[in-house]
């Protein structure tokens, strides 16, 4: 075997605490990466995985310090290296791709300039040569028009494209090591797969070793050669991906894998469905784009285009789709945060659009929403009891003391008993905050709960707890549940029925088993194929499941609908509807 590109021995990183002490966030971590191999650092938030990636480049935050251990990069010790030595290594020999593609490229410079900058600095090539290499690399990351991209600015590209450009500008240096910190976490499933495919192919070609930092076990299992499992800064186990993730020995790894959403837990209960609670009838929502000059007419943009769906009493309906598909907009129209421009929404048979202020207030008591970001959905100045009690404010005939009592009881119900009511949101973890958000939403016992990506910001173990809590509360209070998510794993676990959206249109809907087991629309298939999952495989083992259902042919005379005009809704099985258009 070749000498490893990167060899970390007994690394320890400590963070200064506000009390003046020091806390070890990385403790005695050792692993090697061979040239051309991909090693994944896996763990929940707070496991120290990002700190390890950063300590290799000596880009630790000011409060953190490397306390012990050695980092050998191609035989050179980096822990004791001077700043001047590090500058020669960074960029040229070790490249880094960050999580947030929107902020990691400089918006004021063209893509080409940013790519050539490092080439000319480190490799001292001529401008023409730098241009040639940059263009070649843009081509290899499958940018459609490399010459155009070279002259363009980062804001002209979507997140996925930017991440490819980022990858190109790092790999054009042909670094010996690439550190990728959650490189696809902010991207949609299909784009996630594209970026990862390009990354693993290119690095293998160039012979770059990759240190992948990720929390996504399915993705790690599909791409990484080796896995280092971390918990509280310590290595739990490490070894070949096959062994660690598919035949785990350590209790913690098993616990993580058990927390992954699975199908059988709940959901998929077509029998729970009662009468229709909500009917969304050919609803469109239009937004105006701000014109460039005030005398121009504002352009209109249809976020939702003629969508129809029903939500029955007591069921869980999932809306899935990529960002920009309009799934959030439908949820926001239901809770009246946006107004539909066309079509009708009926709640218990009554038309929501026609409500006057009084019936709207009554309606709002019956529909509540749980938001995605647990860090911005709670007012930082209020105590938890006050936050939850506000959900009861518009309920007539309750005294302040009664509201407080009921709020505290509901906090206990979601697992935050006792003096939690007197705390402020900043004292809580993400999962606990999401519990408060749920308590606030259901304290007035609504009939409909709209949840917009409620668990996508949480670790898998916490995610599992929240999903279990949702199911328990639904069983107890009997609300219907519109669950908006891009995470097909989570949806598979809890949804009774699934609606797939694509660019403002509903392209497929049916029961969970219909959509997951016999998907019809090509978009649904791509979505499922892009989501690798780890599933139990008899005994104590696991296997990597890639969805590869065969494409069912569209009925005679029709194609599957993919935008443009109005779709024809076709029922392929009872309750299973697919969008078509005449061929």
């Amino acid at each position, binding site marked *: 075997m070749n000498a490893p590109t990167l060899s970390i021995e007994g690394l320890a990183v400590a963070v200064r605490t*506000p009390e003046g002490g020091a806390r070890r966030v990385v403790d005695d971590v050792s692993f090697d990466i061979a040239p051309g191999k991909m090693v994944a650092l896996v763990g929940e938030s707070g496991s120290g995985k990002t700190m390890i990636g950063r300590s290799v480049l000596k880009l630790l935050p000011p409060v953190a310090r490397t306390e012990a251990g050695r980092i050998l990069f191609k035989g050179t010790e980096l822990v004791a290296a001077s700043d001047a030595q590090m500058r020669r290594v960074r960029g040229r020999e070790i490249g880094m791709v960050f999580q947030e593609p929107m902020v990691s490229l400089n918006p004021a410079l063209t893509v080409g300039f940013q790519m050539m900058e490092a080439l000319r600095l480190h490799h001292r090539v001529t401008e023409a040569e730098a241009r040639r290499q940059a263009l070649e690399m843009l081509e290899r990351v499958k940018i459609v028009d490399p010459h155009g991209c070279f002259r363009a600015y980062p804001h002209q590209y979507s997140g996925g494209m930017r991440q490819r450009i980022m990858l190109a500008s790092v790999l054009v240096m042909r670094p010996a090591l690439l550190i990728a910190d959650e490189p696809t976490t902010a991207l949609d499933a299909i784009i996630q797969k594209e970026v990862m495919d390009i990354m693993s192919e290119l690095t293998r070609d160039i012979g770059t070793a990759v240190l992948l930092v990720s929390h996504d076990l399915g993705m790690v299992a599909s791409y990484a050669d080796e896995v280092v499992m971390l918990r509280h800064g310590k290595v739990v186990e490490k070894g070949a991906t096959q062994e660690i993730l598919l035949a785990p020995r350590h209790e913690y790894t098993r616990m993580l894998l058990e927390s992954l959403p699975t199908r059988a837990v709940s959901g998929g209960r077509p029998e729970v469905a009662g009468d229709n609670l909500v009917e969304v009838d050919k609803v469109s929502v239009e937004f105006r784009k701000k014109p460039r000059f005030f005398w121009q007419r504002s352009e209109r943009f249809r976020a939702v285009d003629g969508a129809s769906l029903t939500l029955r009493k007591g069921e869980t309906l999932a809306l899935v789709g990529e960002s920009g598909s309009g799934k959030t907009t439908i949820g926001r129209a239901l*809770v*009246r*945060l946006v107004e539909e421009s066309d079509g009708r929404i009926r709640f218990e048979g009554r038309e929501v659009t026609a409500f006057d202020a009084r019936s*709207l*207030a009554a309606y*709002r*008591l019956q*529909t*509540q*929403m749980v*938001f*995605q*970001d647990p860090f*911005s*959905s*709670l*007012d*930082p*100045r209020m105590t938890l009891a006050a936050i939850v009690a*506000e*959900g009861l*404010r*518009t309920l007539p005939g309750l005294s302040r003391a009664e509201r407080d009592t009921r709020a505290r009881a509901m906090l206990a119900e979601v697992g935050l008993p006792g003096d939690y009511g007197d705390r*402020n949101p*900043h004292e809580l973890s993400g999962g606990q905050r999401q519990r408060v*958000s749920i308590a*606030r939403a259901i304290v007035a016992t609504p009939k409909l709960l709209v949840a917009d990506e409620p668990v996508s910001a949480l670790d898998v173990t916490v995610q599992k707890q929240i999903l279990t809590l949702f199911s328990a509360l639904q069983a107890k209070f009997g609300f219907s549940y519109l669950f908006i998510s891009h995470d097909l794993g989570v949806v598979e676990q809890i949804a009774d029925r699934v609606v797939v959206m694509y660019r403002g249109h509903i392209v497929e809907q049916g029961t969970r088993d219909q959509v997951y087991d016999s998907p019809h629309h090509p978009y649904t298939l791509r979505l499922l194929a892009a989501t690798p999952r780890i599933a139990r495989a008899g005994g104590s083992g696991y296997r990597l499941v890639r969805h590869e259902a065969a494409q069912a042919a569209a009925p005679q005379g029709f194609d599957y609908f993919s935008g443009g005009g109005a779709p024809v809704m076709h029922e392929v099985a009872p309750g299973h509807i697919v969008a078509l258009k005449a061929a």
Partner: protein
Amino acid sequence: MSWRSLWRRPNAIVGGLLLLVMIGAAIVGVLYTPYDPVANDLATRLKPPSPAHWLGTDEWGRDVLSRLLFGAGVSMTISSFTVLAAVAVGTLLGAAAGYFGGWFERVAMALLDALLAFPSLIMALGMMAVFGPSRTGVIAALTLAYMPSVARVVRGSVLSVREKEYVEASRVMGNSEPFTMFRHVLPNCVAPIIVLATALFGWALLAESALSFLGLGVPPPASSWGGMLSDSRNYVGQAPWLALVPGISISLTLLGINLFGDALRDQFDPRMKNL
């Protein structure tokens, strides 16, 4: 968030003490001064500090300590009223513009921008020229000069807070728009308002002295700190205490206000509770 825990902050204690001394001086100045602050006594002009005149006398032989105490009241009233009025009007305008948006925002912001485009002192000068020198005139002019910057700052932070999910959550719960604004949006904009208000207090003190210097502020012979400072300029060489006494008083007041403002800002932010 209790007021008692405010006094555990060193900033609050030092700042509060300084302010207390200045306010005390202002109150004493109204009730009692060792000499008549406006009585000339040419026999004792430009005397250095002595047991008879603790802080010396000025070019008209007036007792500096008496003028300082009397001026404390004048300067502090003008500055506080200016800050209060500018913050109140500016916050309301800025919050309404930021929160409701639309044509109201466009009109209000265009007017405020026009006001901002004027150098504030020139505008205050113009107003004083129209109204004639008086305390209320100074307050009104300075309020109009400083209110637009408050409105701008408030609008900016309202715009960012407005997008938070807890504001949407409040709407989904059926709360009215004004309730949402006063309960969730404005309280989360307090920090920049306090910081700006403490800075404004200093600017107002200095602007009042500039106006007095130009003869458009507090009409003589009544004293104000700014007026004392500007009167001293011809005698700095012979009688440095004339400049030092009001100068140090202004500096200490500003220091107190700033320290206290910092402590208040931290106190209002629950995230800083244990710091």
